[in-house]
């Protein structure tokens, strides 16, 4: 048998075959599989995010203002009503009751009220209020 030599032997082709019409739709199939250009989807929401936030903030504030105002008014009204009814219904307040309502600081302040009026302060008041003299005279 003749010795096989690649260079002298007739060229051997690989022997692999390709299905008929394989390349007819190959490029089409690849094109379909290509990742699509990522188009940036800007939604109404994201585009107007800042604008929407501003609107929301204005809405919240404008709704909150009358509510807060009402709450505060209500509290004030309630307080004065309560005080009034308390005073009406508790006419028999004894000194002890009053004392019990006061704390140490209030009592100290009251003590100061009874303290003798200092001379300088008295003179000051008298010199600045000329009507006082007339008032004293009329009283006499």
């Amino acid at each position, binding site marked *: 048998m003749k010795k096989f030599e690649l260079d002298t032997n007739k060229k051997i082709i690989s022997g692999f075959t390709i299905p008929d019409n394989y390349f007819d739709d190959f490029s089409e199939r690849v094109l379909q599989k290509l990742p699509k*250009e990522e188009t940036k989807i800007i939604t109404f929401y994201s585009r107007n995010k800042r604008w929407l936030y501003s609107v929301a903030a204005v809405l919240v504030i404008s709704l909150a203002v009358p509510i807060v105002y009402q709450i505060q008014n209500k509290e004030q009204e309630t307080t004065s009503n309560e005080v009034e009814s308390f005073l009406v219904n508790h006419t028999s307040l004894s000194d002890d009751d009053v004392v019990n309502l006061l704390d140490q600081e209030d009592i100290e302040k009251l003590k100061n009220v009874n303290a003798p009026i200092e001379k300088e302060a008295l003179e000051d008041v008298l010199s600045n209020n000329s009507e006082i003299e007339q008032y004293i005279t009329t009283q006499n």
Partner: protein
Amino acid sequence: MQEEKDFIKELLDPKTQNIAFQKLLRTYQKPLYNHIRNIVLNHDDTDDVLQNTFIKVFQHLKNFKGDSKLFSWMYRIATNEAITFINNKAKRNGTTSEAMQTKIVENLQSDVYFDGNEIQSKLQKAITQLPEKQQLVFKMKYFEEIKYENMSEILGTSVGALKASYHHAVKKIEEFMNTD
């Protein structure tokens, strides 16, 4: 070279991209098919790898620096894809890529997309005996007739080393072919 630069621009420009990519497909689909088929051997696998190759080419076009030719860059991607494919397939089947390739070659006669005579089958068997790099060099030189200079760019190996690889491969193949 300028022509290639213009073509790459067309491939990157969204307006001309579609037409340019179709041109790229038409130009390279057959040579790349043959290149991949010689590595993975089976038609269906070649179809998968070829599609993935073009998808990768498309995805990485913007990173293509133009240091090498578009042709060799695409062949490099195809080679890597094909080798990765057979390695992964072998791993999935719990075997080595060499053992898997030997098995495919032994059963080539039953492959409907192999129309080879006895000598063609024997040559395929002879190739599987070679180390991976020699197989690649032999197939690219003998079947695909790629010039050493281009092969050097594709495989990143010097022309001298490629010639030596081919020479070794031929010797081993002739030895195998001369045994019964």
